[in-house]
């Protein structure tokens, strides 16, 4: 009785927070879910998509009982086994990622509430009424003001603390429960990201309810090097936006060049039409060492930890503008501006300045003072050749390269006056600088690469934020019926095996009339390629969320708009209530929305968290080959696994035998293989015969293109009836099916996992 009272009290508090009295939709079964509330959904997923653990090492070294050897069924002193230890690591990674975004959201919200007040209305324009699909689905809250977003982020903070607690020595003992917690963290991440980007759109007046956002100049060449240059690095626009304001207020807007690396660059271009994007994270070290920046301003996430040392080497001034990365620098927030400027210019000192107005003023003044004395030219071929002559081809650089490149060959060819190999290597390079660290002759390899770098100016479309409700109404039916063959979301960082892969993937699928969505560093990388007519992907394809469109949603935190779009399809098109109704939304997406994420260059913990959040929502994710280093994938075994769903119309559990989607988190070793996996992972049980035939047409044709002919080995699993067979391959497919003794099967009328596992959600909830 006392327990029941406690539960009711807790629910009452939650209802108060989410303003349940406002009846925009009935409150679903899981308002503000805690760790265990969606556990059954997770376990259902994990039953099919089992964790695949690839330990980095054999030990656990988390506590003073250890190190503990976990090989050959040994357990650690706390009782942990190797699988659980990997799952714990993955949860920690997801929490790091989730915290990064949540903290970003919390900070920007604080800044913007201070600027506009908590009652500032959330208005995302005339085409967006469903402003916060993740927040509404997860919390059950419809945020109407900046102050409401605070409720959402405080919920995320609380859950993060609980999850982090579970990683302490001597607690959780099940890998599956750790996975459920990782999935929880991933889901929270999408809430945190959504808070951040909605706050930014509202508070900074970013573009919204518009598809055709401006095309922004991209690349080294886009930056006017005759002007003082301020380069923003990181993710949080709290700094760069104030610099833009300062320049405008002081009539200096056209006197100083603003550019950026990584997501801050994307954010700044949403605020200022004059800002440029130099490039993705992978080019950070390269561009810093080029000395292009008179002043570097860092904020948070994805900034090098040796920034002061690198800035000093390049002769750039550095301002650390947020407390998350202060580099041991003196905090000059309370120092008089002129004194800071003097010390930075005359003594070449770097500072942390946590007052954004002061940081902006200092940045501008220092850049204007030091720019005239600085050289911002690339190395000449002759200079590079001289430096390269020291190479003895010892091979140490090759052993240090994470992408296994023969860098020594490139450098030694430069010494001979041949720059072709280094040009090729520059395209591949992920910019970690490990080659240089290992070089016994201290050859400045990244500097030498300047002779191989592209001199082109490219284009990236400024991030547009959420997908519009009007667009969802247009594409909802064709996506769920399968006649738009899928939504392909290329997201995340730039640890690519080859930077050109991304643009090729976008080109292939946009041409095939998939909807292609990009974000973060990937959105820059795809712009760094031109077709035979000299057009970038953004100039080649329309910016609409529609068949054949290429949409840049924005920075990392804008990834929440991709998950949000999937939820919008369930809510706007299918009219399923979303309020605190996570299982219904995720079930809909898993079974009916043919979407797949590609994190081809994933490198950070944030990417792990974002991907895991997509997984909980039922979106499979393909990762690049290096991503096995995340230690965990979610894989099915298509022949052995159960592929049972409830046919909600007949109220029968049906064994479909159809592995759709086949995996939830999957690593591909080559771009070519990814090209074949993408159309397959867009197949859903809900596809109409026409939609399935379209999807199989792409699967077969891409298989033939990249696998050298023939038919996919698992094709029979995806053909339900004759009508599913694409016309163009009818004869060949029918002959194959006859040969293997294929039997037709009935498509499922309304496929759902609800009703196949213990849940409070009734099957009726999925019928619209």
């Amino acid at each position: 009785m006392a327990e029941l009272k406690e539960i009711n009290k807790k629910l009452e508090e939650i209802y108060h927070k989410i303003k349940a009295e406002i009846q925009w939709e009935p409150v679903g079964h899981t308002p503000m879910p805690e760790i265990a509330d969606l556990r059954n959904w997770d376990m259902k997923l994990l039953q099919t998509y089992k964790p695949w653990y690839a330990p980095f090492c054999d030990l656990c070294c988390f506590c003073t009982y250890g190190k503990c050897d976990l090989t050959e069924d040994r357990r650690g002193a706390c009782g942990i086994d190797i699988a659980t230890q990997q799952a714990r690591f993955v949860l920690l990674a997801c929490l790091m990622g989730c915290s990064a975004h949540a903290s970003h959201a919390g900070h920007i919200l604080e800044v913007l509430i201070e600027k506009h007040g908590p009652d500032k209305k959330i208005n995302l324009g005339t085409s967006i009424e469903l402003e916060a699909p993740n927040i509404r689905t997860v919390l059950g809250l419809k945020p109407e003001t900046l102050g409401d977003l605070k409720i959402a982020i405080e919920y995320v903070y609380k859950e993060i603390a609980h999850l982090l607690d579970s990683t302490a020595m001597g607690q959780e003992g099940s890998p599956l429960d750790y996975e459920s917690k990782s999935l929880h963290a991933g889901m929270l991440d999408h809430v945190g990201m959504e808070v951040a980007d909605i706050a930014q759109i509202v508070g900074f007046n970013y573009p919204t309810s518009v598809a055709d956002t401006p095309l922004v100049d991209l690349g080294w060449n886009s930056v006017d090097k005759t002007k003082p240059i301020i380069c923003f690095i990181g993710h949080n626009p709290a700094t760069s936006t104030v610099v833009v304001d300062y320049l405008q207020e002081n009539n200096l807007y056209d006197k100083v060049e603003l550019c950026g690396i990584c997501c801050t660059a994307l954010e700044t271009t949403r605020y200022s039409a004059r800002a440029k994007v130099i490039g993705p994270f992978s080019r950070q070290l390269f561009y810093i060492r080029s000395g292009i920046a008179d002043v570097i301003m860092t904020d948070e996430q994805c900034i090098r930890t040796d920034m002061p040392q690198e800035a000093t080497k390049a002769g750039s001034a550095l301002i650390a503008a947020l407390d998350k990365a202060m580099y041991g620098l003196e905090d000059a927030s309370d120092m008089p501006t002129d004194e800071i400027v003097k010390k930075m210019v005359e003594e070449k000192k770097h500072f942390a300045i946590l007052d954004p107005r002061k940081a902006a003023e200092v940045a501008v003044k220092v850049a204007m003072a030091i720019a005239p004395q600085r050289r911002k030219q690339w190395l000449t071929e002759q200079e590079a050749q001289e430096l390269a002559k020291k190479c003895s081809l010892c091979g140490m650089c090759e052993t240090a390269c994470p992408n296994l490149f023969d860098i020594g060959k490139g450098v030694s060819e430069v010494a001979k006056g041949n720059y072709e190999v280094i040009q090729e290597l520059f395209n591949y390079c992920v910019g970690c600088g490990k080659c240089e660290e290992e070089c016994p002759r201290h050859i400045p390899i990244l500097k030498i690469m300047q002779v191989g770098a592209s001199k082109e100016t490219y284009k990236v479309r400024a991030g547009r934020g959420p997908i519009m409700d009007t667009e969802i109404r247009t594409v909802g039916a064709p996506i769920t019926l399968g006649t738009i063959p899928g939504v392909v979301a290329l997201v995340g960082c730039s640890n690519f095996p080859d930077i050109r892969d991304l643009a090729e993937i976008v080109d292939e699928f946009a041409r095939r009339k998939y909807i292609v969505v990009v974000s973060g560093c990937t959105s820059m990388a795809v712009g760094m390629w031109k077709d035979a007519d000299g057009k970038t992907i953004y100039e080649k394809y329309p910016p609409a969320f529609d068949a054949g469109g290429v949409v840049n949603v924005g920075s990392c935190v804008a990834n929440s708009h991709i998950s949000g779009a999937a939820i919008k399809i369930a809510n706007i098109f299918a009219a399923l209530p979303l309020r605190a109704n996570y299982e219904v939304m995720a079930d809909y997406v898993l079974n009916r929305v043919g979407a797949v994420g590609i994190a081809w260059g994933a490198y950070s913990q944030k990417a792990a968290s974002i991907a895991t959040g997509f997984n909980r929502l039922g979106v499979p994710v393909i990762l690049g080959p290096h991503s096995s280093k995340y230690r965990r994938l979610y894989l099915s075994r298509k022949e052995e696994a159960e592929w049972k769903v409830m046919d909600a119309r007949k109220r029968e559990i049906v064994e479909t035998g159809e592995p759709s989607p086949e995996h939830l988190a999957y690593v591909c070793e080559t771009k070519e293989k990814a090209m074949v996996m993408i159309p397959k992972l867009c197949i859903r049980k809900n596809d109409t015969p026409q939609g399935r035939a379209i999807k199989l047409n792409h699967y077969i044709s891409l298989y033939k293109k990249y696998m050298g002919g023939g038919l996919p080995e698992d094709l029979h699993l995806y053909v339900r009836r004759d009508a599913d067979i694409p016309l163009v391959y009818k004869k060949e497919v029918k002959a194959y099916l006859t040969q293997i003794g294929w039997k037709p099967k009935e498509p499922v009328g309304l496929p759902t996992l609800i009703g196949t596992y213990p849940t409070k959600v009734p099957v009726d909830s999925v019928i619209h």
Partner: protein
Amino acid sequence: MSQLAPMLPMHRVNVLTGTRTARMVEDPAELAKQILKAQRPLLVLGPRLMKINLGGRLLLEYALEIAKARNIPTCATATVKSKMIELGATPDSVYDIVEIIHALKDPEWKGVRKEGNHDLVLFFGFRTDLGNQGLSVLKHFAPHLKTMTLCKYYYPHADFSLPNIRKDEQWKAFLEGLIENLKKE
């Protein structure tokens, strides 16, 4: 007893940093002996086999010769199948590396020829990061089988690995020696 035991310092709980590492095999005859001991070996072929040319022959051709020498079943990963067919060979199975590893973890799996799970898995032609992570999966979660690599890099997570070989001629000689030994037994 761990293979590292003789090298382990006392109080390893405090100082151990390494992993249970592969036995480094420098003699092709010894490697051939291990392959011949296996009842149901499997050769998993990676995409780098199509990129590397050794002495005028594609690395994949060496791999196919190894398979042919002892009728070792093959698993083509990534896009290897197409090149195999071009070279007149048909893979016994097509999986990606993470998928075949996922299946191999299951001791009850019937293997690519439905004769039972494999007791020795040879990996050839993978990126070292993905290869070593995959081998780690099997080291920890597939105690019912042994693993071997044929690339010119040392793979700590395998049971048997070649050392790092700087010169391609040495690697070529090793592979030719292996083929010769497999053929003559």
